[in-house]
């Protein structure tokens, strides 16, 4: 097996202290190899975004982060601020959900792309502008010369997200971390972005971590999928396995809750209730309150381990469904 492109090990994030402390990420581990894509799926509050923000040192100090985040044999959580700055943008590229809030409204597109190229790769201004133009072309922005001088507000949502991707790709990162990058976009634009990332990955062999609330979006993109709930990984499997033989009742619930185009059903199988409050987590299985199975006396009192239920398939439940 190759050395993993990026891995988090036993990552924990606690926000606040004492009684109000929220354990938003609880012992999360996953890894993604070079050239592969990991899908991280979960609802709001599942801890999926917190995991990657913490792993890159992007959470401000009140957040207590433990565990490790390994990139090329180095633990990012042990690096100094300056060392981290040399890695973020250079070896780790980020794309977030809302390009309007992650782009600087006062800088031109050119400046936002060239900043990293000049800083990390030591390129001259002119060389950086040339690279920026090429990047805009690769991400499918027509008339790149004109767009280089545009400000974010002059671009459509889809184009802004493509600029974000151009910035993330500008230094040829080893790992691209994409946090709900298509959620705010129209479905036809989403299809363009998915295609673009797939194609870039094939060419450069970068590892991709794709975070989404939608299992369908990661279906065509990911090799492996991690399902998060209440700050924990509740299931992990190759994408085909997860779809054909989901083991955790929550994963099964997620798959049944979403209407699927062309496969009409009378009723959606809704999951009752709402996700748990990270300040008041249950003592047993984190999904217990909403679980339709509750098939084991330990469910209410004991936190299940993430156990192997099939080939490369893990689930954190006392009641894995039949394979």
């Amino acid at each position: 097996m190759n050395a993993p492109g990026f891995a988090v090990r036993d990552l924990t994030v606690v926000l606040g202290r004492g009684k109000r402390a929220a354990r938003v990420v609880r012992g999360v581990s996953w890894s993604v190899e070079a050239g592969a894509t990991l899908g991280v799926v979960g609802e709001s509050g599942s801890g999926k975004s917190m995991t990657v923000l913490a792993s890159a040192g992007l959470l401000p100090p009140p957040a207590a982060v433990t565990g490790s985040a390994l990139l090329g044999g180095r633990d990012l959580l042990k690096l100094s601020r300056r060392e981290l700055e040399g890695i973020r943008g250079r070896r780790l590229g980020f794309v977030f959900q809302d390009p309007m809030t992650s782009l600087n409204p006062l800088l031109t597109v050119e400046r936002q792309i060239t900043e990293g190229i000049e800083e990390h790769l030591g390129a001259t201004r002119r060389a950086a502008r040339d690279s920026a133009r090429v990047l805009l072309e690769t991400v499918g922005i027509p008339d790149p010369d004109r767009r280089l001088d545009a400000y974010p507000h002059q671009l459509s949502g889809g184009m802004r997200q493509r600029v974000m991707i151009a910035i993330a790709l500008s230094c040829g990162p080893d790992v691209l971390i994409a946090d709900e990058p298509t959620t705010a976009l129209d479905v036809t634009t989403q299809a363009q972005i998915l295609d673009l990332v797939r194609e870039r990955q094939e060419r450069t062999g970068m590892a991709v971590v794709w975070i989404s609330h939608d299992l369908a979006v990661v279906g065509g993109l990911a090799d492996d999928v991690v399902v998060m709930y209440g700050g924990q990984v509740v299931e992990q499997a190759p994408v085909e396995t997860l779809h054909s033989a989901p083991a955790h009742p929550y994963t099964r619930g997620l798959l049944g809750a979403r209407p699927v185009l062309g496969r009409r059903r009378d009723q959606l199988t809704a999951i009752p209730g709402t996700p748990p409050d990270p300040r008041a987590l249950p003592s047993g299985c984190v999904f217990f309150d909403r679980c339709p199975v509750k098939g084991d006396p330990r469910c209410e009192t004991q936190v299940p381990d993430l156990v192997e239920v099939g080939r490369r398939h893990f689930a954190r439940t006392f009641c894995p469904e039949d394979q």
Partner: protein
Amino acid sequence: MRSEPGPGTGQDAQSVPLLDVRNLCVRFPGPREGRHRSWVHAVEDVSFAVDRGQTLGLVGESGSGKSTIGNALTRLVPPTSGTVHLDGQDVLAARGAPARELRRRIAMVFQDPYASLDPRRTAGATVREPMDVHRMLSGRAERNRRVAELLDLVGLVRETAARYPHELSGGQRQRVSIARALAADPDLVVLDEATASLDVSVQAQIMNLLRELQGELGLTYLFVSHDLAAVEHMSHHVVVMYLGRLMETGTTDHLYTRPAHPYTQALMSAVPDPDPATERNRERILLGGDPPSPLDPPSGCVFRTRCPLAVDECAGPVPQTTVSANHFAWCIRTGESLSPERLRRFVH
């Protein structure tokens, strides 16, 4: 322009549809350049109808005008021209008491229950407000009793009446919005992206609730959404819009199994399939570029600048073509557009 009966009027031509929208146009003033003022054509010549007890899905991407239509029906924005009839009565021409009565009969649920509920008002007061406004039932005690019934109906415990929005989850808040919408006993409920901001598991709860309520109360819905799968799940008839114009209308079964307009086809093919095996092997139509500006829409068919099947004639008038009974497409190439060989040239 012809105003053919839209979808939903069904085979029974004599029956009056609950909602009948004809040639609706909504334009907003755009930037002024010298003496010339440009206009945003948010909705252009849109006609459709919905029968009582049915759901019409209004689907499109951002800028398609789908939300503007919902807002025009409830008179949140003034239509530029066209007519809207509810149960045969002219909604836009009504003034005074009849207008208030018509307004009572059309309710609305918005996308974001965080923004559409008053943070300083309890859920009970929020649900009671439409009854207060329309002076329904005699006295507060009776209205409060009705509030408890409504909370029950939407699956909330009665104690929710004393809670403020910040004490409720997103799903509970949306249930409060639905209870408020039902308080004035409406005939038509406009659901504007009513499930879009909710988590997947909660979306299913709300969609199931809406369908149950429809069966129980005989409600008519206008389900406005960008989510094609949700629209398919909820609707009897569907209207597909792009840049303020009708692209295609039909019964849900027809339109989803045999989409005739190239835009509808592209839209459907862009929706990822959750089954990775299907997703990796299917052919997809990838549209290039972005929708044009509504300030300066293309002549003729507004989709032609991105359409894989566009020809010169598409810049001319766009006819309404019949695909099958109750299934129409606004495209000169309807019928030929489906040929697989032809499409294969554009698939990705």
